[in-house]
């Protein structure tokens, strides 16, 4: 965002989906419903979505953020190159969120979060995150690009 940050009035577009071979759609769908209620335009790709489809959809819809769900544990394999794919597609600065059960097994959240930040996600959300928390984070990041500092550093 930074440079091309737009007026708060414009309806922001968010691409959502569940990455990889993951079929867990319930949380993703409920999140989508909440985001729409909160005023966002949601482009919902549904379950079992390959990484490149997210990016294609984001380019096509000039999305402001991509919201990747991964519940089934293999997200760590599916998400590795996600930021690179974004950069290749010219989406250097697109806001990237990831949420769900992001690794296999019960692992310390701080470590998991760091792994996903290292992959280039602006924010990662732990298991069981409620929609309010997501909406609050989006508001923050769209208002003053909070993640900007860190993104600039990358």
């Amino acid at each position: 965002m930074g440079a091309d940050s737009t007026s708060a009035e414009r309806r922001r577009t968010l691409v959502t989906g569940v990455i990889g071979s993951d079929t867990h759609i319930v949380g993703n769908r409920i999140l989508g419903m909440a985001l729409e209620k909160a005023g966002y335009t949601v482009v919902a790709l549904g379950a079992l979505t390959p990484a490149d489809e997210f990016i294609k959809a984001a380019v096509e819809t000039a999305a402001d953020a991509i919201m990747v769900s991964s519940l089934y544990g293999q997200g760590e394999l599916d998400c590795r190159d996600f930021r690179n794919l974004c950069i290749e597609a010219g989406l250097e600065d697109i806001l990237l969120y990831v949420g769900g059960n992001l690794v296999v097994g019960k692992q310390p959240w701080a470590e998991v979060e760091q792994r996903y930040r290292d992959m280039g996600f602006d924010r990662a959300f732990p298991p069981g995150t409620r929609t309010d928390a997501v909406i609050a984070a989006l508001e923050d990041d769209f208002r003053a690009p909070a993640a900007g500092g860190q993104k600039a550093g990358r």
Partner: protein
Amino acid sequence: MGAVRRPDPGEPPLSAARIPEDVFAAMRRDNLARWPTGAEVDLDAAVDFHKSLPEHKRLPSVMRRAVAEGRCLTQPRGGFGTLELQMELMRTLDTDGFADIVPTTTDSYTRNEHFSRAEKGIEESKRLGRSMLNGFPMVNYGVAAARTLIEAIDKPGIVLSGTAMPKLTSEIGFAAGYSGYLGSGIAYTVSYTKDISIEDGIRNYQYLDRLAALYRERGVELHRRQPGFLTGTNIPPSIAIITGVLDALLAAGQGVRDYGLELGQTLHLVQDAAAIQVCGELCQEYLRQHGFDDVFTPVTSLHWMGAWPQDAAQSAALIVYGGTLAAVGGAVSVTTKSTHEAFGIPTPEANAEGLRMTRMAIYLARNIRLDTMPEFQREKDLIRKEVRAVVDKVLDMGDGDAALGTVRACEAGVLDIPWSPNRCLKSRVLPARDADGYLRILDAGDMPFPKDVLGFHEDRLRERAGREGVPYDHDLAVSSVYEISESLDKLIPGMSAAG
């Protein structure tokens, strides 16, 4: 080997009829050629191996003995990305968990037949020293490796592979000596896939069921099982049982005679007991109606399949109560979860602990039955009415053919399931919990439930909305998705807070 299987142009039209022997032989050849380990499958050798197993390592015998002795068996889920991890897991579940049935859950790449991705997952798991896959890549490892797992345990093994594409996994699993396989054409296609058509899913499972029948012809009974839990998200008993009946008809059509039915728990003592009883009863009723009067249909109850609380203590309550529900309901087995459920695949130890909690619960609730309770009878009647209305309509739409009827009914929304990822389904039906803790139907979509039944559901849900002071709308369904995962201070506010 993409996500969507394109049917052969020369394929016979869809029907519930048994695949002829020669056609099936050709199908098997093609199937086994799809991945190198397919060549390891040797039916004669497999039959010999199964016959060499003691009774207590064959799932059909164990399930029948459980029925005879009035037992409720325990079975966990469990899969890790490498053979070593998987073996340690299965041994722990057998020995420390006293599991009566030991599982091998496959990973999600395998389930979607992305075998080369699974290969990478194995390598990564080895490199990092931890499982990067959410299950065991059985096809990649092949028959010989999988058989070492069966040899490592003193219980029957079952393959758990939530997929609409079970053709290779089942060949490998049965050849390795697994005597049970969970999955079905309707249930898994509607709940585990996005783009696969119901027709393709049914065909794929007709292959698997025909394969089980082939073993049967050779004198080896195998246990097939239907996963009625579907999307695991507040599935009302009738919807699970509807798919159970239809899948059972399809399996029996291929020659299967040992067909278990699974039901996710609603977490209501009375409703779950009613569901377990009616499930067995109605499957038998429809099977007999279709001329199958020798199918064994034991019912398995599943620990809560929706979202879990993060607190291990609350989770322990779900686990133990789940054992109570299964035992009181008279389930022949219960499939268990662990206190790690909200977070991720459990460690072998946590998994074994969940088994022991459940087993103790089963012991404590021995001999308790609800048959004499009027509300138990009421719920049974309700479920019967719901199931019959839909199944009769589905069969009608297929002119008596369960396969055709199902495909058409899904398209029409007559057969529907809540929260489905599959685009061939309307997924308009929406459940919610009522004020007394029963799962009810908030929105039936286009499912042809009787009017009076839906009126009853509405009454119960309006009562909840009234008590909670919230509108009678779809939010009742959304809050019901979260409900059980909420923290205790939300579920039962303290006296000072509430006052």
